[in-house]
């Protein structure tokens, strides 16, 4: 009387698992913050960095 362990929902044997969406969202938020910080600090279009 051995009961097999239930298969995990959504998991198909042999399929490559996608990276967890939490990691992707964390990476996307980090990317946005970095790009925004870069955009705020790069001096151009007649505004020198020293005058910011």
């Amino acid at each position, binding site marked *: 009387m051995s009961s097999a362990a239930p298969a995990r929902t959504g998991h198909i044997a042999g399929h490559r698992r*996608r*990276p967890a*969406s939490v990691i*992707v*969202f964390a990476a*996307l*938020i980090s*990317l*946005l913050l970095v*790009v*925004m910080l*870069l*955009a*705020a600090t*790069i001096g*151009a*279009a*007649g*505004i020198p960095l020293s*005058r*910011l």
Partner: protein
Amino acid sequence: MLWSIRIPRIVVAAMIGALLAMAGTIMQGLFRNPLADPALVGVSSGGAFAAAFTIVVLDTVVAPNAAASAAQALPLAAFAGSLITTLLLYRISSRDGRTSVAMFLLSGLAIAALANAGIGLLIFLADDRQLRDITFWMLGSLGGATWSKAALIAPFVAVAAFATPFIARGLDVLVLGESEAFHAGVRVERLKMICIVLVSAMTGGAVAICGVIGFIGIVVPHLLRLAIGPGHRNLLPASALFGASLMVFADTFARVLAAPAEIPVGILTATIGAPFFLYILLRQRALVGS
């Protein structure tokens, strides 16, 4: 300087990028076509034509000395132009509940050509100041971004963010086809109407603030599908984040590339996006051929 010029520009760029990327994602889900993009199929051109019409006609005929009224009417006009174009596009390319990809792309190109012809006529009629304003719409630029413009675009982002969870499941099921989605319990007609109004509002809002900026809506969803799959529950918010990053990056690049002059960001996104679009076309041809 930072707070009054640079930060509002970054905030506006992020919101515009998020709107355009989400509009592209929704449009691709709605038409079940990975080539759908508001700028490519004339939705942005429709909005830009309405904006140019407002600049020239409202300024010249209705209120010659009230430039403020034209500026206030612009977002509404761009939204109306985008909405009419999207409805027209959907009406032409759909028959018996099925959307023809070829009809969709070709009718989109025809509508874009018609809108551009209308803009050409308005350019011919415009005076020097109006001409400068219209050129700004055509090229797309974030040079005039202010906090008041950020406040103007924020409700569009809020509505899009609020609507996303409600349309994500429907768009996922719609991939199977309209009748299959209907039998799976999706109210297809209501979903289509919500998506069309959303795409029009998002594109119209973006066009009203910064003119026509293309290819964000086609590049972002494609790259993200490779990372997180096609499910719209994750794809839509991820598109918003990545679209915002891409737009801020493109705007910064446009700002520093030829400093102290500024390259219109629409030119830059088209330079990046057009080869990417060709790559998708060639990849699809290779998949169909194999």
